[in-house]
C-alpha cells in the first residue's frame, strides 16, 4: 500500500461532555477517492474541520506529507495543499462566481511560484465545472447546486494535493451528480487525493476506492466498497433497517 499523503492519528474531539470524535484515524492516498460515511452526527464534518484546522482536536495528530500539521493555522494548511468544500454553503455571497474563484487563484499566487496567470486558471475552472455562462452573476443569486459547483471550482483553483468534499452532491440532481463524479475522476487520475463525505450511497460506492465508516465518532469499519457493503458491523450499526436518518 502506498504511503498516505494525509492521515489523522487517534483524533479525539470533545465538546463539553459530548465526544464528537473518538480516536479516529483516517488515511487519504494520492490518486484515489477515499470515502468517509456514517449517519448524521457521526462526526464526519468535525473530522474535516480538524483536518483543515478549523477545529482544534482535544488530542491526536494530523499528518500531511509526512509532517505534523496539528498545530498549523488553517491558511497554512491551505498553502501546503489542502482544499475543501463545505456541507453548508460557504461561498462569498457578495462576489460574482468568477470573483469567488479568482480570489482563490490569486491567493495561490502567494505561495505557488509556478508563474501561472490567476485569470487563466479562473477561466479554466469555470470551463471545467461548466459555470462559464453564469460567471458574472453574484453567487447569492445562484441556485444551491450551482453555488456548490462554485465552491468546488474555488477549491480546485488552489491546485490542491488533497481535496476534502463535504456532501458535494446535495442540492444537485442526478445528472449533475454524475457530471460531478466524472469531473472528480479526471482530477483524481491526475494524482489528486480526495476525501469524500457523502450521503448519496450510489455516488459513494461508485467513486470511492476505499471507505471509512464513522459511527458515534468512532471508525467502525474500513475497506473497499464491496467489503463495507458486506461488513456485518456496518450493516447493523449504520445501514440496518432504519433509513430515516438518511432522508434528511
Amino acid at each position, binding site marked *: 500500500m502506498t504511503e498516505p499523503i494525509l492521515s489523522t492519528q487517534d483524533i479525539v474531539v470533545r465538546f463539553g461532555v459530548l465526544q464528537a470524535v473518538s480516536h479516529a484515524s483516517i488515511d487519504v492516498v494520492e490518486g484515489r477517492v477515499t470515502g468517509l460515511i456514517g449517519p448524521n452526527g457521526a462526526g464526519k464534518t468535525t473530522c474535516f474541520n480538524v483536518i483543515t484546522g478549523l477545529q482544534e482536536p482535544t488530542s491526536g495528530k494530523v499528518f500531511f506529507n509526512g509532517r505534523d500539521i496539528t498545530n498549523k493555522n488553517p491558511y497554512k494548511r491551505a498553502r501546503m495543499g*489542502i482544499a475543501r468544500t463545505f456541507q453548508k454553503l460557504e461561498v462569498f455571497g457578495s*462576489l460574482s462566481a468568477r470573483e469567488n474563484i479568482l480570489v482563490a487563484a490569486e491567493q495561490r499566487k502567494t505561495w505557488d511560484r509556478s508563474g501561472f496567470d490567476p485569470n487563466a486558471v479562473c477561466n479554466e475552472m469555470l470551463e471545467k465545472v461548466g459555470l462559464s455562462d453564469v460567471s458574472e452573476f453574484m453567487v447569492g443569486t445562484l441556485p444551491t447546486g450551482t453555488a456548490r459547483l462554485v465552491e468546488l471550482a474555488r477549491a480546485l483553483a488552489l491546485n490542491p494535493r488533497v481535496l476534502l468534499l463535504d456532501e458535494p452532491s446535495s442540492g444537485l440532481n442526478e445528472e449533475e451528480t454524475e457530471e460531478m463524479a466524472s469531473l472528480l475522476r479526471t482530477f483524481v487520475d491526475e494524482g489528486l487525493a480526495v476525501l469524500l463525505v457523502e450521503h448519496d450511497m450510489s455516488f459513494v460506492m461508485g467513486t470511492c476506492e476505499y471507505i471509512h465508516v464513522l459511527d458515534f465518532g468512532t471508525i467502525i469499519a474500513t475497506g473497499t466498497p464491496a467489503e463495507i457493503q458486506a461488513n456485518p458491523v456496518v450493516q447493523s450499526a449504520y445501514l440496518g433497517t432504519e433509513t430515516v436518518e438518511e432522508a434528511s
Partner: protein
Amino acid sequence: MRGKLNGRLVAAIVVALILAFIVNKNWGSASFFDSKNISTFLVVGIALGGIYAITAGGLVVTYATTGIFNFAHAAIGCFLAFVYWQLSHQYHVPLLLAMAITLLVVAPAIGILLDRVIMRRLRDASLVVQLMVTVGLMLTIMGLTLTIWSPKTSRTVPHFFESSKGVQIGSVTATWHRIITVVVALLVAVALRWLLYRTRLGISMRAVVDSRSLAGLVGAKPSVISGASWSLGCMTAGLAGILIAPETGLVVENLALIIIVAAAAAAIAQLKSIPMAFVGGLIIGLATAFSAVFLQFGKDYSYASEAIPCVILFIALLFLPQARLSTGKIRLTKRTERLTKPWEALLGAFAIVAIVGAWANGWIPWFTGTTFGQRSAIWLGRGAGFLVFGLVMISLIPLIGWAGQVSFANFAIAGIGALLFVHFGGGDGNPMGIVWVMLVCAPLGLLIALPALRLKGLYLALATMAFAEFTDKVIVRHPRLLDPSNSGVLYKPLKILGFSISSEATDRKAFVMFLVITFALLFLMLELLRRTRWARRWIAMSDSPAASATIGVNLTTSKMAVFMLSGAMAGFAGCMLGLQNGALRVDSFPMFAGLPIVLLLAVQGVRYPIAAFMGVLGLASFPAISELFGNPSWLTQLALIGPGIAAVAMAYRPEGAVFYTGRDVAGWLPWRQDARDEKKLLQAKEREQNIGKDEINDLGLTRPFTEDKVAQLDRVLAITDLVDEKKMVPGGAQ
C-alpha cells in the same frame, strides 16, 4: 494548551505591572491603610458597582436571548430616568409609585415595542446592520430625550432618604441611597437567577439561546420570549438609570455613556454569563471608587478617571479566548449588481465635482437666494465641514463595507490626526505634514484593532467605541497635543496647486473645491481598488472567514492591511478637519460626534463608495431642513435624531439606499440592458416563490393545502422531485 496558558499568564503579569506603575505614579495623598479611606472606597465602590451590575446584567440577558447587542441600552435607561423625574418631580407622583410606573409599565412597553417593530427583524441581519440599528436607536433616544427635556434647564434627582443620615459602617456613613442600591442590586441578581433557572419562561429563554428552532419545536414561543427579554433589558436599564441619576445628575450624555461601562462588564462576562456580568460591574465600580479615593491624576491626565471603563474593556478583550472560525452561518443575499466599470467611476467622480462645484460657485439658481441655502460664507464653511465628514465616511468603506470590520473610531483617529497636523507642519502651512499624519494614523488604526482582531466582530465595535471615548477623555486632553489655553487658529493657510486652503472666509470656496476634488479622487481610487485582488480578498474574508482561511487567506494580516488603509485615510480626513475648524478645543471630539457619520454612511449602503457622497448630502440635509422650518425648538436635535431614525430604518432596508435606488435607476440607463434583464428575472422568481412565512405556518391549519401552494412550497424548500428511495440505502440498487 500549555503555551496558551503561559501566554495569558505573561499578559496578566504585564498588565498588572503596567497598572501598578500607573497607580504608583498617580497615587494621591490618601493613605491606603487609613480605615476611613478603605471603607469609603468599599462603600462607594460597591454601591456604584451594584448599579453597573444591574445594567450590565440586563444587557447580557438580552444579548444572550436575542443575539442582539443593544447599544441603546443605557440611552433607554437615561430616557426612563427622565420619565421617572417627570413623574415624581413635575407631576408629584409619590416616589415608589413613580418608580413602579416607570419600571413596570413604561419600561416593558418600550421593550415590547422595540421587539415588535425593530429587533425581530434584526434576528437574521448581518452584524453591521444590527450594530447600525441599535446605535441609531441610541442616538434617536438621546435626541428625543434632549428634545423633550431641554438640556438648558438643570435637573437633579435627590438621593433616597436624603435628609436621613444613613448608617455608620466603620468610620464612614453609608447613605440610605447607597444601602438601597446595594440591596436592590442583590435582589436583581437573585431575581434574574431565579427567573432564568426556576421559571418556565426563563428556561425557555435559555433554550432559545441554544437553538431557536429547536426551542420552538418543543413549545417555547420565541416571540413571547424575545418580548420578555427586551422588557427585562429595558427594566434593568431604567432601574440603573434611576439609581445612578442622583450621582451623575440628569445629563443625557453622562447617562448614555454608561453603555461603555455595561459593554466592559459584558465583555468580562464574555457576553453570556450573568453572574460574571455582575462581577464585571462590581469590578468597574470598585476601580472607579479606588481612583476617586486614592488616585490623583496629574493635570496632563485630569480626565483619566473617566476612561477607566474603557481601559477595563481593553484589558478584558486581551483575556478573551480566541473566536472559533464558525461555518454554516453565511448569509446569501439576493443582491443583483455588477462591478462598476472604470469609465462609470470616472463619470461619477466628475459628477461629484460638478455638482459641488456648481453649488459652491453659485451656478445653481435655487441655492443662490438670500435666505435658505444661500451660498453664504456660513454655508460654504458648513459645506467644507460636510465634505470633511465625507472624507471620514469614505475611509470607512473598505473597512466596514468590504472587510466587515465595524469601527466607530475613525472620527477619533481623524481628531488625533487634526492635532498631530498642528505639530507636523500644518502649523507652518507645510503640505508634507499631511503625509506624516497619514503615516502615523495608519498604524494607529491598526493599534486600536489589535486587541479585537482575533475576536468576533462585535468586540471590535465595542473596542473602537471605547477607544473613541478614551481619545476624548485622555488623548486629546493632553496639553502636549493640544494647548488648552490657545483658542486661536492653529494652522497657517495651506498652499496646494494654487489653492489657498484655510478656515478663513475668503478661502472657503477654494477649500470646498479642494475638498471635493480630493474626495472625488478618493472615490475613484476606491472604485478602482474594488476591482483588485485586495478588495476581493477583504470581501471574501467578510463573507466567510472560514472559507477564506481554507483557501489560504491569512485573516490577521488581511485585517491589518485594511485597518492601516482606513487609518491613513482617516488621518487625511483629520488634517482637513483641523484646517476646516482652524481653532480646536479639547472637547472638539466627543465619542458621540463620530457616530452619526458612521450611521449616515451605513444608511446609504456602506459597500458602495458613492454612498459617502450621498452621506455628505444627508449630513447637509439636516441643517437645511431645520432652516427650512425656521429652526424651531423641536428640531434642535435633528442632527442626532435624523441619522438615528434613518439607521433604525435599516431594520427594514438593510442594504442601504444606494443599493435600492441603484437597482431601480440602473434599468433606466440606456446601456444597462443587463440590469433590466436581471430585474425581470428577479421579479419572475419572486412571483414564483410568492409564499409568505405566515402562509407556510398556516398551511393546513387555516389555509387549505391547494395543489399550487404545495408546488410553491416545494420550490421554496428546494424539493425538486420525489425522494429517490434507491439513493437512501447503500447498495440498495442491488
